[in-house]
């Protein structure tokens, strides 16, 4: 791996090494450019990942968290701010791609043009994307084949130029039951595409079905994180360095309004200026806008690349709600990957429902032992004691017979849902913390409720002894961080153009969940990575032509 000297000018600084940053680094390095990736989190290798549910999943040791980067959360305009983590991401080399559940759904053609299909929705910023599915398709395919995805096309899938590189992962009992219930209702269950290897691929091992995917790194390297896939390829070019524990606090600009580099803190919290010919920010939908807002200057007094005033606005979390079911016999769904079957029959927004939105449903099991014992995922039978022998026997009785059906839904882009800098609160480095204002749009709540009814109906049709569903849907925490530097053709109404170049700054590119114009159906990673492949392709061309 290349080590750049401190202060040595590079072609590109990439801020963030996650789903988008890892891809960006690999593409730009293999295209012949020098690339320094600055990642705020530590670097862990596969063998260092553990199944310590408490430290990792409950305490969030590899997340952004209170002790380092507290947040203020405003649960809707006018509400009192509370000190609470609201926008959660993973801070380590590989970012969220290391820790995610690995659902890997493409968008459909309709996702890119819902404004045209459905008309405007009052009080929202629903817009078409400046690109189409057809333009992105080759990059979806590239992502699936470079990273490694297991799946099988379903009846509603958009056209694809190549099949999945790996066959479906073996179906679990939750998938069998979910499929049975869905078919009984006349629905079209399909294989859930997963960025987890069902067979050895590109020198990596297949999944060993340990059962610790969501919120954990894969110690076998079978989950197709950027850490396990493209980052080593980028490093092997000899032109890319991934510098961990490097926390960027500002993007510097010249008098001419061009980016000159970034200022970052190293692991010892010493400050450095890193010069670069161009900067690509892939810091996620919360940190990307925060970094722009932190990068105020006399030329950009409202934050960098913010002439539209839209940096940080239109935050979308996706809706997520979890239902549950208990069956007669053992599912043992605590083994293997989370999801093997999904239902996408309710994907499209249907005006006949009376509200905007759509989504997918998957069968899974949130069955990590501590999480289950703490509350049965909301599904302990009414009146069961919370401790004692009866409690213990119930845990054992239910643990292997329970599964969940989760719904993943749309969020409307609402301008007041946003990331800002908090005027008072500072992080461990003395920088302004984020203030997150978020309230689900009433249509988002209606969509979750609608999908939850479908999920429960599927599990009942599958023969569940008992099912349950959440009583309320409004969310106060988000893991999908989308829409905060939206792409568009109009510099007044978007932050980046169709190539992810900031409208205001020629050598600044932003590419991650922040680029999204609409939210998809709750599985954004596949599209984030397809966008990164596409953006990198264009950025490399611009660079070669001297157009940066």
């Amino acid at each position: 791996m290349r080590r750049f000297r401190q202060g040595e000018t590079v072609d590109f600084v990439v801020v963030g090494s996650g789903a988008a940053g890892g891809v960006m680094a690999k593409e730009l390095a293999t295209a012949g450019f020098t690339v320094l990736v600055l990642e705020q989190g530590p670097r862990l290798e596969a063998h260092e990942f553990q199944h310590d549910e408490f430290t990792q999943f409950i305490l969030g040791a590899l997340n952004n968290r209170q002790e380092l980067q507290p947040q203020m959360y405003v649960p809707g305009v006018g509400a009192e701010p509370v000190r609470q983590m609201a926008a959660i991401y993973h801070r380590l080399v590989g970012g969220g791609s290391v820790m995610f559940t690995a659902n890997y759904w493409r968008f459909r053609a309709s996702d890119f043009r819902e404004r045209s299909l459905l008309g405007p929705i009052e009080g929202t910023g629903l817009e078409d994307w400046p690109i189409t599915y057809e333009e992105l398709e080759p990059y979806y395919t590239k992502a699936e084949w470079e990273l490694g995805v297991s799946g099988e096309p379903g009846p509603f899938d958009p056209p694809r130029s190549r099949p999945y590189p790996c066959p479906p992962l073996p179906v679990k009992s939750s998938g069998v039951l979910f499929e049975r219930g869905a078919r009984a209702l006349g629905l079209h269950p399909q294989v859930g595409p997963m960025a987890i290897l069902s067979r050895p691929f590109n020198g990596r091992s297949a999944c060993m079905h340990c059962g610790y995917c969501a919120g954990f790194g894969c110690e076998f390297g079978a989950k197709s994180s950027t850490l396990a896939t493209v980052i080593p390829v980028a490093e092997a070019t000899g032109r890319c360095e991934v510098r961990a524990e490097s926390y960027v606090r500002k993007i510097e600009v010249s008098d001419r309004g061009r980016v000159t580099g970034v200022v970052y803190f190293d692991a010892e919290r010493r400050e450095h200026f890193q010069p670069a010919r161009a900067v690509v920010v892939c810091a996620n939908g919360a940190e990307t806008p925060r970094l722009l807002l932190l990068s105020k200057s006399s030329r950009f007094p409202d934050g960098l690349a913010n002439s539209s005033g839209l940096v940080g606005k239109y935050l979308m979390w996706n809706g997520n709600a979890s239902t549950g079911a208990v069956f007669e016999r053992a599912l043992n769904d605590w083994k293997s990957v989370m999801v093997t079957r999904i239902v996408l029959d309710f994907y499209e927004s249907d005006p006949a429902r009376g509200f905007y939105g759509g989504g997918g449903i998957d069968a899974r099991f949130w069955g990590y032992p501590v999480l289950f014992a703490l509350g049965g995922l909301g599904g302990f039978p009414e009146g069961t004691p919370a401790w004692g022998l009866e409690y213990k026997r119930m845990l054992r009785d239910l643990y292997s017979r329970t599964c969940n059906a989760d719904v993943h839904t749309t969020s409307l882009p609402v301008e007041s849902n946003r990331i800002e800098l908090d005027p008072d609160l500072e992080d461990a480095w003395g920088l302004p913390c984020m203030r997150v204002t978020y309230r689900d749009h009433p249509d988002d709540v209606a969509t979750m409720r609608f999908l939850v009814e479908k999920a429960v109906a599927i599990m009942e049709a599958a023969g569940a002894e008992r099912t349950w569903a959440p009583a309320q849907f409004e969310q106060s925490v988000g893991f999908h961080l989308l829409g905060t530097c939206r792409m568009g053709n109009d510099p007044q109404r978007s932050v980046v153009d169709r190539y992810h170049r900031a409208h205001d700054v020629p050598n600044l590119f932003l590419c991650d969940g922040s680029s999204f114009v609409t939210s998809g159906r709750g599985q954004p990673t596949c599209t984030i990575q397809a966008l990164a492949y596409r953006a990198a392709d264009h950025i490399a061309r611009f660079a070669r032509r001297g157009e940066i």
Partner: protein
Amino acid sequence: MHRHLSRREFLATTGALASAWIGSDPGAFARALEARREQEPRFRVLAPEQAADLEAIAAQIIPTDEFPGAREARAIVFIDRALEGFAKDQLPTILDGLEDLSRRIRALGAPAGRRFAQLPDAQQVALLREIEETPFFQQVRFATIVGTFGHPSLGGNHEGSGWRALGFEPRFVWQPPFGEYDAAVERGR
């Protein structure tokens, strides 16, 4: 490794000793003794009698039946470590809660100095019912669950005994079929 057993340790060992003899296995005594030594951890924060009380509470929250409970899982080791580390702030609540229990025991007319761990089962349960809504009990319940079902590297869930009680097998490498329903589909092929 040789060391002298204190009187308390000796008494504590006798229970294990008795059951070891029932097994009439000549090696069992030595093993039981060794196991008992391992079960006498050096607590970092808690005094021995505090640890004994908290362990007794934990053992009521997740009792021992045909499967291991919080006691066999050594949830108390996790609780002690937690109170030194990330749950340091909760120590006053825990110590106040134990004090409160002592007061309640005195109010029952128990002899002076009688501690929770020394009460009969039924009295322990009745006392815990009185306090089950308190932050103290909720914190101990939470810590007991983590100490029983959490990763063994945290100090509890000794040798995966908590996982065993739940029906979770910590093999972490599996092949299909995973459960009965996918096995049935597999058979039908």
